[in-house]
């Protein structure tokens, strides 16, 4: 009997591990920045380049930092949802315009339905994005009242993932 049970057992264990492996997306790399203060930066704003946007702007409220670019196709698919979110006034949405030309970025926002961001930082050379560990736009960070990064979502922000994951985290952080 044991002669059959042992291979069966090995098979089941392997199948479970491989099965779990199949459900995970290898493109999603866990960020080492979760639980750490937002990396320091000072960037010119996209619309008012003479003014700055810096990590100190995060203090005092829970906010989102959405990393986007006009050359990013997936950003187009999340843009209507960001507009909808901005209209609801649940949370401050900051933008990080990553490796993009100012004119292209401004034109893109005008073309695709408006600007959902309170302030947009213009990260022309991508150096700030690098400090934030950005590796695939769009990315969205949830930042708490103390300016600590609490969650990172990689990929377009859609209603399903917003309702199931981000909104509960944000509500918890806002109650803190």
């Amino acid at each position, binding site marked *: 009997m044991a002669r059959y049970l042992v291979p069966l057992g090995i098979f089941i264990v392997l199948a479970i591990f491989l099965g779990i492996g199949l459900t995970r997306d290898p493109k999603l790399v866990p960020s080492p920045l979760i639980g750490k203060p937002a990396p320091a930066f000072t960037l010119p704003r996209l619309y008012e380049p003479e003014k700055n946007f810096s990590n100190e702007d995060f203090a005092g409220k829970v906010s989102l930092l959405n990393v986007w670019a006009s050359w990013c196709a997936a950003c187009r698919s999340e843009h209507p949802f960001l507009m909808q979110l901005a209209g609801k006034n649940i949370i401050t949405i900051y933008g990080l315009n990553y490796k993009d030309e100012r004119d292209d970025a401004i034109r893109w926002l005008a073309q695709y339905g408006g600007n959902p961001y309170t302030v947009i930082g213009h990260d022309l050379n991508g150096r700030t994005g690098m400090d934030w560990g950005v*590796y695939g736009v769009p990315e969205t960070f949830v930042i708490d009242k103390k300016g600590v990064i609490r969650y990172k979502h990689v990929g377009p922000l859609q209603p399903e993932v917003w309702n199931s994951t981000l909104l509960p985290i944000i509500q918890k952080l806002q109650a803190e």
Partner: protein
Amino acid sequence: MRLPHFLSCALLLVLMLPAQAAIVAFEFDDPAKEARFKHFGEELRCLVCQNQSIADSNAELALDLRRELYKMIQNDATDEEIIDFMTNRYGDFVLYRPPVKTTTYLLWFGPFVLVLIGLIILFRVIRSGNKQGNTELSTEEQQRLQQLLKNEKGEG
């Protein structure tokens, strides 16, 4: 149509150029620094195209990271500083050789455990095989053999 050998060789060389260009773009006057640059370029994983190192990849991010690596090496950053710079931003995932710690024990030691399990199974199979090859009969089997032989004689 057959190309003369030297022509086809020349063609191959030209085709190889873009692959070389990725590294050559950064110039070093110190060969030791260049060696470090090459070493780290191959040890670090590009996060956009995960099966390529940052030296191999043509992704924008890989280029940015190569530039950053170049700067750090020109400024004589230590190995530790370079590794910290990368892992503070992208996690251990950027390292093709992640550090040994509790979360990576399975990764580092799993294969050895599997080999050990395999050896134990092999050993047991060989031993039980030896047992089956045993030609000595137990007393019970001897009795049964005698009986069968007797029966055969009676019938014959």
